[in-house]
């Protein structure tokens, strides 16, 4: 991608954040909550997009990392650990776990790897549900306080948007650096990459670890947003939902998660009148989208916006 395209992509992402901030002044508390949720989902999906979309490593473990981030914050903050520190610790824990999860990826790929990562999600879910002494089990953890100064709905939304802005800058920098190119090389042709001196092992582990850490950051924001957590939001269903956000938005495209998360947050609201049929309609829309444009919504938009003629 050219420098101009890179800059335009970052500009669009940051403009979306500013817009989200401005729009909140016209919204009711529930709308503000949805925007905050969008920011949280976008962070988690950006992490998965790095692992899956750019580095080509299938992962169904992202929900587990969001859960670990959420529980870390919920457990540490009552002991006087500041929010920022518990967010960092959650992200660090996920980074280390992600490194560990990367090892199977050195041996298996594709659907086998999906199964390994699925196992981690299930394992994390079982720990959250059964280790009552630590996690409160199905009763969960309630009264999670928001950090001082960000207690109001809009205040916390700005915090979420601020963290998303940092994540955006970080991911953008990373992906346009030589690391980003190495990640894409893993996806495109790992054997050839190895013959060019790319340490496939190190980059595979890093792709998992960094993606996982962003999942942890999203979780850390999620707990104080909803102020009550229990295991069910972090089950396999949520991993699949995050996968869908990446794919619907546009896998391997920087803005994909932004749009994918927006669809995931808004569509259930718009289709609420359909009640139980909502999922059927959602599924049908996804199938139609992917049949028409496998590159997702961003791919669809690019096809129309950047139509070039002939060969350069």
């Amino acid at each position, binding site marked *: 991608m*050219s420098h101009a395209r890179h800059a335009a992509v970052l500009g669009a992402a940051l403009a979306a954040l500013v817009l989200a901030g401005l729009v909140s002044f016209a919204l009711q508390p529930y709308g503000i909550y949805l925007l905050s949720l969008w920011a949280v989902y976008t962070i988690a999906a950006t992490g998965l997009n790095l692992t899956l979309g750019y580095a080509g490593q299938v992962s169904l473990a992202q929900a587990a990392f969001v859960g670990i981030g959420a529980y870390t914050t919920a457990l540490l903050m009552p002991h006087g650990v500041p929010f920022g520190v518990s967010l960092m610790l959650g992200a660090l824990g996920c980074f280390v776990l992600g490194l560990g999860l990367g090892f199977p990826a050195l041996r298996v790929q594709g659907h086998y790897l999906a199964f390994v990562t699925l196992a981690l999600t299930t394992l994390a879910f079982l720990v959250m549900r059964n280790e009552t002494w630590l996690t409160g089990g199905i009763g969960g953890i309630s009264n999670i306080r928001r950090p001082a100064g960000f207690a109001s709905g809009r205040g916390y939304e700005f915090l979420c948007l601020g963290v998303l802005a940092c994540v955006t800058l970080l991911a953008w920098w990373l992906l346009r*650096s*030589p*690391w980003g190119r190495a990640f894409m*090389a893993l996806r495109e*042709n790992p054997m050839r990459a*190895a013959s060019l*001196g790319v340490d496939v092992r190190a980059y595979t582990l890093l792709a998992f670890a960094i993606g996982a850490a962003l999942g942890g950051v999203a979780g850390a924001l999620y707990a104080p947003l909803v102020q009550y957590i229990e295991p069910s939001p972090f089950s396999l269903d949520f991993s699949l939902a995050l996968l869908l956000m990446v794919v619907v938005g546009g896998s391997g495209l920087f803005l994909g998660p932004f749009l994918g998360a927006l669809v995931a947050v808004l569509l259930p609201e718009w289709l609420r009148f359909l009640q139980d049929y909502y999922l059927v309609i959602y599924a049908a829309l996804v199938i139609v989208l992917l049949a028409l444009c496998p590159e997702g919504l961003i791919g669809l938009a690019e096809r129309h916006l950047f139509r070039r003629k002939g060969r350069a």
Partner: protein
Amino acid sequence: MIGPDAPTVLEARDLVRSFGAVRAVDGISFAVREGEILGVIGPNGSGKSTLFNCLLGQLLPSAGQVLLDGRDVTGMRPAALNRLGVSRTFQLLQVFPQLSVRDNLILAGQEHVGSRIARLFGSPDAGLGAAADRMLGLFRLEALAAEMAASLSYGQQKLLDAAIAFMAGPRLVLLDEPAGGVNPTLLAGFRERLRAMNTEAGATFVVIEHNMEFVMSLCTRVICIAQGKIIANGAPAAVRADPAVIEAYLGD
């Protein structure tokens, strides 16, 4: 000419690689001296590509040794060998289809520049912009720099594949059928570039190729492999005239 005292760069000692009961490489020994352009010919399925894969760490040999500058590198990982200055091309196209031509080249050089951490904070093209431009020019791919590699024709991808192998300035390059599918005129230019890199930069090449015109006009020495064994080894003209080579490979 390569003097007899030129140091040995690459050496294979009694290399064997079996797949089940089949010995694809069956006791091959040879040495490549610095500055040589060694041609490797032989029938399809005679073990040439398997030999390359054993030399380059893609496959672990069943027996025998590979030495680089006299040092045992048997089974060393491809990435580590590459960082020692050994590069290769592949028989079937191996580029990065969804990266631009330019990014393909930068990727091929970036792991040789500085430390991984320094690369993260350095410039996006790892300071390789000028080097990539030079390579684009050498292989006449300038006009396609911004295109996805997947959108190139077969012959163009073949050139890109070769350009990738030369990007990091390797001193030993193993080329697996570089001429297949490349237009004869372009191929003549490619041959001259290989020759220039050989004489000017002192790079050593091992070339698997079926295009005999290309082999005869480029290589300083040729070995012929049939059924996993070397059946001829010597000056190009002598190997071409060898009755065993004509029988197994050239036909009459």
